Every structure is written in structure tokens, then in C-alpha cells.
């Protein structure tokens, strides 16, 4: 099962390696990880996407909680929440496909953030499904490369998980 885990940590050097070291040292898998500051500059938030059965996820959250620099661990599975990820896709379409690429970008509410004679760089934000769908659609028209930010997630206010 895939879980998105949000971890509030002290914003100090070395904390990222403590967290990533925990995953590598114990053989847990990290699918994506993103780090950023929070409203309190002394606190960072890490959003980690990982997979494992219930027992492994339980160990992961317990082990994260055990790290001295970790303030709070939230498994987003337990909450109603919003997840987003951004991807930058560089496509090099043939002349006849260019209009279609722009069209799909439009439909996905993406933006062209850079262009050259042969390529467009497109920014798409959304949940995983949207991003996957976009990539599937433009793939036949020639993706040169893409980079993904990894997921960020936030709990919804006042909404209980059914």
C-alpha cells in the first residue's frame, strides 16, 4: 500500500540525512520526498511517499517519531487531505503535433514556461492521476525529459475521514 506521510521536523542541518538514513538503513522504500519550510521558519515539513504493508508503515511512523528532531508525523491515509505535485515536461513535438500539445496543455490547465525552436517546456500541477494522464497523452508526441517535484500534502480543515 502506498502512503503519504507528512513529517514536521526541526529545521537544522543533518535532519534530512537522519530521515533518509532511517529509510535506507532499514530497507524502507522512498518513492518521493519533498522538503520545505513551514510558516515557522524553525520548522520544515517533509512529505514522503512510501509503500509497505500495515506493519511496515506502522514501523516507519514509529521510527520517524523516535528521531529526536521529528516533531510530528502524520500518515495522510488517516485524514481527508489534498495532495499536489508539479511536473515540468520538455516536449519536442513534430511540426504537425505542435497544436495538439498546446491543446492538451490547455485542457490540463498547464502553462508553457519556456519554448525553443524545437521544444516546449510545460508546467502541470495536480494530483498523481492528472500528472500521469498528461504524461501518457503527450508521450507519443515526444517527451525529451521531465522532472517531478514529489508530492506535497495538507490535511483538509474540519473534514473527518469517512
Amino acid at each position, binding site marked *: 500500500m502506498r502512503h503519504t506521510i507528512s513529517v514536521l521536523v*526541526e529545521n537544522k542541518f543533518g535532519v534530512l*540525512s537522519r530521515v533518509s538514513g532511517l529509510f535506507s538503513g532499514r530497507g524502507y522504500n522512498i518513492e518521493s520526498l519533498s522538503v520545505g519550510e513551514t510558516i515557522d521558519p524553525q520548522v520544515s515539513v517533509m512529505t514522503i511517499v512510501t509503500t509497505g504493508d500495515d506493519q511496515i508503515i506502522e*514501523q516507519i511512523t514509529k521510527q520517524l517519531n523516535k528521531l*529526536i*528532531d521529528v*516533531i510530528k508525523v502524520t500518515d495522510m491515509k488517516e485524514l481527508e487531505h489534498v495532495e499536489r505535485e508539479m511536473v515540468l515536461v520538455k516536449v519536442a513535438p513534430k511540426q504537425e503535433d505542435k497544436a495538439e500539445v498546446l491543446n492538451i496543455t490547455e485542457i490540463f490547465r498547464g502553462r508553457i514556461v519556456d519554448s525553443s525552436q524545437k521544444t516546449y517546456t510545460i508546467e502541470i500541477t495536480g494530483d498523481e492521476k492528472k500528472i500521469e494522464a498528461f504524461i501518457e497523452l503527450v508521450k507519443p508526441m515526444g517527451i525529451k525529459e521531465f522532472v517531478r517535484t514529489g508530492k506535497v500534502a495538507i490535511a483538509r480543515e474540519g473534514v473527518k475521514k469517512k
Partner: protein
Amino acid sequence: MKISGAEIIIESLKREGAKHVFGYPGGVVLNIFDSLYDNKDVQLILTRHEQGAIHAADGYARATGKAGVALVTSGPGATNTVTGIATASMDSIPLVVLSGQVPTMLIGNDAFQEADIVGITRPCTKYNYLVKDVNDLSRIIKEAFHIATTGRPGPVLIDLPKDVTVAKAEFTWPELDMRSYKPTYEGNKWMITQAAHTIAKAKKPVIIAGGGVILSGASKELRELAEHAEIPVTMTLMGLGGFPGTHALSLGMLGMHGTYYANKAVQESDLLIAIGMRFDDRVTGKVEAFAPHAKIVHIDIDPTSIRKNIRVDVPIVGDVKRVLTVLNKVLKEEVKEQWDEVRKAWLKQIEDWKAERPLTYTWSDEVIKPQFVVEKIYELTRGDAIITTEVGQNQMWAAQFYKYDKPRTWLSSGGLGTMGYGFPAAIGAQLAFPNKLVIDIAGDGSIQMNIQELATAVINKLPVKVAILNNRYLGMVRQWQELFYNERYSYSHLDVVPDFVELARAYSAVGLRATKPSEVEPVLKEAFKIHKPVFMDFVVNWKEKVYPMVPAGAPIDHMLFEEPEKKPEKKLKAVK
């Protein structure tokens, strides 16, 4: 008044009550050493190797319950501590390790004797620090002692760049404020009540006591529980001494080299009360076949220990002492069960198992049996000694044939199984208890891993005794090769073992040797009278194996026992 970083370090150690520091000097810690030179509050014990310093600090910590402290230089000094730090980490032992570091501005430059010790020790410390500002120093030291000794204890390393030890600051001793570190001490009352009712219903309960009982100082509460509810107690290797080994309810150690009756009782039990233990694979054997009929109550201060390896029915996160205090109260005041009748059949069954297969070995008139040496040590000390061990067969016999009645009298590297641990640990324990008899039960292989510390013992007049069970083999390895590798003794024979008697003399210590069973007692008696470090070389039967033994990965009631010897002992003695 502003004082230097070095002076801040010493003042902080003094405030933490750390009178003894084990260490070794080098370039970047010279300022600290200079401040120690005429200091009356903190004494440095110069070891002969940084690994020795760490194990000595660890032995000191295990014997006293306080944090052990070590001070080493950067680079090789720091990396030499890694095995010792990992040893302490695996066994949850509180240490504060101060390592020197190259000056802040040189960090990352591959400077002379630079090693990223914070990076290297990240996975084997509870926490570690690189101090970048002298103004943070005292707070960090205070935090380090706090983290090392509270919750689930463990080693903490503080890396000290040279310039930080030179820079000056006002000394402050701030109140600690750590929002992200708050161990849970009180167990959940509802869960504890659940546990009490589960205990009330059980017909065949067993307590498994682990290292957490000793770390928590909960022997009294454990005994109260066992006696009140009439529950037999088995101990992990780390739990030995947490419950009296001579008590009628004691089953001795369980697991791979545990007693027949402990393993039987666990497998047949309908309730396991696991207290401050972590279900190591040496304890459970094949996990799927472990205690198949038992409900499991698990008390541990570290939530990650619970449900890591074994399913649990009643998890209780908290400090053993506090949880047991409440549990005992609930049992006495709310449950009020009388167990005398209920337990009769179960305790009778256990007595039968004890009679069926006690811990034994085959006596020999000609060759010294290592178990006999341990038995004699127990007999002559009447159990009133601090025993440390090396690793291997010597360690297992020391666990089996000596009865530990009190906590902190058994110091052994369990989790990491570090050969070379026992001798420096004995030195640390002896320093803490100058008037106690401290004995390292050693193997001829392991003792050579930190034998240089004999100088430390001699110079500091620490009269530790080392009983070497000399089988000329890496015996535990040889045992596995004999049993599971078709007797292919690949590189487990030590060929040349030093003359330990002469070696002791070379260090101005005393060396004694016994080659016949009749010499064992006289040698021990003489050694115990001598107020100096003594090496006792017991030339023992090299073929001896540790039994019972559960082969790796088997259920723990699948035990191997000693087979009656086919060949006469005499022939087995000869080894070239």
C-alpha cells in the same frame, strides 16, 4: 567571566556528575586535555586504544546506571570508537562521547585527521551533534546527557571542532527545552488494566524479562509481580540479573542457548508478559512458530520495539518500573485473584521440565571443562561479583552456569556481540566499584582484541580478573562448523595463542595457569586474593560445545543437546 570552550566542557561534565572520563589524546583535543591537566573534579583514565575507552565507559555505565563518558581525538581517534558506540547502541547503554574535530573553517576540506564522525555515527547513536558555536556548548552537553540517559537510553556523540574549544563564552546552564523529545513514561491505565485481567485469566503464563528491567531499575517491582501472581520468569541475555537467578520461579535464559525448561515453558504458555525486551531473533527462533498458543502483553518504553517482530495483544508503552507499579496495584486491589490452586499444575509441569533436562555437561577428570570453571567462579564468589564477558562460547557458558541475583552484575555485549568488549568493560566497572570483585570471563580469541588494556588496569591499580577459557579456537565458530558445515574448520583454529601467563608478567600483572581440573579452584582462589590484575589461563577442552542449542531459524523448542561422547576424552585433548 568568559571561559574557553575546553573549560566549559569540563564545567559541564562536573555539573553532570561525570567524575571519570575514559580517553585518548590527539591534536585537536589538546586544549581539552590541557584544561584537564590540573582539574580536580574530572579525572581522565588513559586507555591504550579508543575502542578500549568506549567499552570501559560502557562497562562503567552498565555497572552504575549513569552515563559513561569518553573523550577522543578527531579522525582515527573518532573512527576507533565506532564499534564501541554501536555496541552501546544495540544494548541501549547511555554514553556521552566527545570527539575532537578539525577547526570549523577546515571541515569538509579533507583536512589532516578529518573524518565525518557525525555522518559515520548517525545510524549507531541515539543522537549526535556538531558544535559550531561555543555559546551552544553547555546546552548541547546538557542535552546530550539528558538524551543518553532518559527514555530508551543510548549513546550520544558530540563533535568538537578545535576552534570551539579555544573560543570563549560566558558559562550558562540553561533549562532544557526540547519540544521534539518527550519519552513516554506512564503506561496507559486502561491497557494496564487489560493486562491485569489477561493475567487473571491465564493458566500457563510466563514472564520474559529483558534489558529494559535493568535499565529501568525495576527488579523489585518485577519480583513483586512474579511472586504475587506466581508466574515463572525467564530472561533474555540482557535481562540476566533483572530477576534472581536462584529464585524458585526463575527459568534462566531463553532462546538459542536458553534452558530446555525456559524454551519449553514459552512454547507451551498461554500468556507471555514481555517486559523491557525486544524479541530478538536469538530469542524467538522461527518467528511463525514462536509461542503459538500465547497471548502477548508487551511493556516497552520504545514504541518501535512493540510489534516489530512479534504480534502483540496488549501493548503498553511506558517505563517498566512505573507500569509494573500500577499493574501490581491493579492486580492486588482490583483483580484480587488467588493463584495458589490455579498455578499448581503449571508450576508442577515446569518442575518436571527442570528435572527432565537441567543444564549439564559431562565431567572429566583429565581435562578442564569450561563450564566447570564458570561453576567454580560462581561457587567461590557466591555470586557476589561483577561478571563481564567476551563473545562466543565463553559468554554463553557464563550466562548459563553462573546465577545472577542482582541487576548490573552481568555486563555482556548482546546485540552487537562485540569480541573484545569484556576486558575494557571490566576495567570501567572496577573503576566504579573499586572494592568489588570484577571478573571478565573470556575466550582466548576475544581477549586478544583489546588485550592492550592490561596496561590501563595495571597503571590505574584496577585489580580486574580475567578468566580465559582457552580452547585455542574461535570456539563458537568452530561449533557451527562442526554442527552445520561438515566439520570443515575453515580458519577457526588460532594455532598460536600467546602465553597468557608470560604476557601478564610482561605488563607487570599476574599470570596463573590451570591445565587440570584439580588446579581450577586453587588458581581461582589465589587470583581472588591478589590485589592486582590477574590473567588466569584455563586450558580447557577444545571440543566442548554450548548446549542446549537451537539451530538458527528453528522453533525454540527444537533444541540440540550434548550427545554422549563416543571417543574417550583423553584423545580429544591433543591439538597441535
